[in-house]
């Protein structure tokens, strides 16, 4: 597939952008008066926004800040203000997220890379057979590690981790909620990566991986929503809050996962289905940064991301089981993904010689 990009086309979009800013400029108003006096906008870290455009965005943020929630959960929460005015260098993404991401990718790459000839790996039906046999060797190990980590993590989290000062034992659902949410996001990124590879180079195994990831991702997102809702019911006194950007964006993520599955099952031809699904997956990738940033950008009911490796932010005795659980979920996901991939390979290759030999042999 060739995508031709026309220069005129970009000029057109640039023109639209200019027109838009011209249209909107007179509608913005100065900062004073727009923001209630009890809030010191500077203290909450809005000073980075500039000019009349910044004012508009600030008012929008303030709207989300102030509107639907009582003040103790949101605005003048001292801890939150301190979090937001931290110097830029210290406000980093959780290293854990990237560590987990890296491990996951390395694992997949290790399983499926044919280091000797990458070009030979492409468009070879033999590679599917290779993958089928290789994954058979991987699955027991991945499953064993997942079960072991789950056991250690659950015992550590439910028994040995200290009781939270405010939430008492209710916080322990974090050991399911956070891993499920984290992996559901990572799986989407992985799926989009595989979709892009499948779309561009027509590598069959990438298409199969993308198709196998969608139901898993949907399940994990559902787990994240359900556990989050139970947790919220216990500690925020509300099971569901329509105004919270994090809940909304995760719900949309679930819908997107489901729509990807729907499209994939609606098209008969597997290759066409894979390409069509890939385009949808890549189009909806926009949601991922929104899900990740929604808690840091909009300051609402859902707390901002806790820095797991920061001792002031989280007790190490709580962080340890959490990290273990994230890895447990990752290994579980990898194992399940490979099982689905194996089933998919057998299905798509059912008319080939090696599958019938396999069937006769077993």
């Amino acid at each position, binding site marked *: 597939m060739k995508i031709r990009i026309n220069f005129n086309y970009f000029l057109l*979009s640039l023109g639209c*952008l200019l027109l*838009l800013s011209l249209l909107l400029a007179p509608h913005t108003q100065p900062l004073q008066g727009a923001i209630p006096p009890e809030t010191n906008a500077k203290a909450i870290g809005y000073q980075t926004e500039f000019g*009349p455009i910044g004012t508009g965005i600030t008012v929008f943020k303030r709207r989300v800040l102030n509107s639907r929630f009582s003040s103790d959960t949101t605005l003048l929460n001292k801890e939150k203000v301190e979090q937001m005015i931290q110097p830029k260098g210290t406000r980093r993404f959780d290293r854990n997220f990237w560590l987990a991401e890296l491990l996951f990718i390395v694992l997949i790459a290790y399983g499926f890379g044919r280091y000797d000839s990458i070009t030979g790996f492409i468009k070879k039906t033999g590679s599917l057979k290779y993958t089928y046999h290789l994954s058979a060797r991987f699955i027991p190990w991945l499953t064993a590690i997942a079960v072991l980590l789950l056991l250690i993590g659950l015992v550590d989290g439910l028994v040995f981790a200290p009781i939270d000062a405010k939430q008492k034992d209710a916080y322990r659902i974090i050991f399911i909620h956070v891993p499920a949410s984290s992996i559901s996001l990572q799986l989407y990124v992985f799926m989009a990566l595989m979709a892009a590879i499948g779309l561009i180079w027509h590598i069959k195994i990438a298409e199969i991986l993308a198709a196998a990831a969608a139901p898993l991702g949907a399940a994990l997102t559902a787990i994240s929503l359900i556990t989050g809702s139970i947790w919220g019911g216990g500690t925020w006194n509300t099971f569901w809050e329509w105004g919270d950007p994090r809940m909304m964006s995760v719900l949309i993520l679930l819908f997107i996962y489901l729509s990807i599955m729907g*499209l994939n099952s609606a098209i008969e031809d597997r290759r066409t289905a894979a390409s*069509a699904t890939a385009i949808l997956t890549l*189009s909806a990738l926009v949601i991922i940064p*929104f899900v990740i940033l929604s808690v840091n950008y909009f300051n609402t009911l859902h707390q901002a991301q806790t820095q797991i490796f920061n001792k002031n932010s989280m007790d190490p005795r709580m962080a340890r089981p959490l990290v273990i659980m994230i890895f447990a979920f990752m290994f579980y996901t990898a194992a399940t993904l490979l099982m689905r991939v194996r089933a998919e390979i057998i299905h798509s290759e059912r008319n080939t010689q090696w599958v019938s030999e396999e069937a006769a042999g077993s």
Partner: protein
Amino acid sequence: MKKSAATAFSALVRRDLLLAYRYRAEIVNPLLYFVIIVSLYPLSVSSEPKVLATIASGVIWVAALLSALLSLDSMFRSDYEDGTLEQILMSPHPTAVLVLAKVTAHWITTGLPLVVIAPLLALSLHLDAAAFPALLLSLLIGTPALSLLGAIGIALTVGLRRGGLLLAILILPLYVPILVLSSTAIQLAAEKVPYSGPLLMLGALSVLALTLAPLATAAALRISLR
């Protein structure tokens, strides 16, 4: 006789507008649908002016969303059935530009009438007078994004026999940010505070859709017609 992409663009827009003019039902039906949905709310929720004023922004935008969804099918369906779509894909001009022409024509025939008629409906829903500029602006900025994003969905499902419901499932999650931003803008305007923030974000989304959606639609059309 090699002609530029701009010529092809305007020719395609003119052709689609002429077609829409000949089959006026294509313009009128989504509009009628829009009006009917809006009128269902006062009948079902409440006819109290105060209640209507608070829900007006959401009602109008939900109706706009649904009527856009209904009208999307006409964007590629008839072209797919009579083979015009294959001709479009085979033309030497960039498919994305031609797709943009189709989307433009679709917006002029379905999006623009909504913008024209929406103030009237807003008036009947007792929307605050201060919110009208925001309503018009959000519709002007937002409806092109509806057409552009919808084009991806319809391009993916055009080859399917039972694509209608699937289209709604594919597209509605992608429409949610547009809905949230525009109705927030209108509500802010009704409360007489600056509403440029959500509108600017809406504009950013629209421009993003304008730059990337035609490329995705072109790729999706190639897959659907494979």
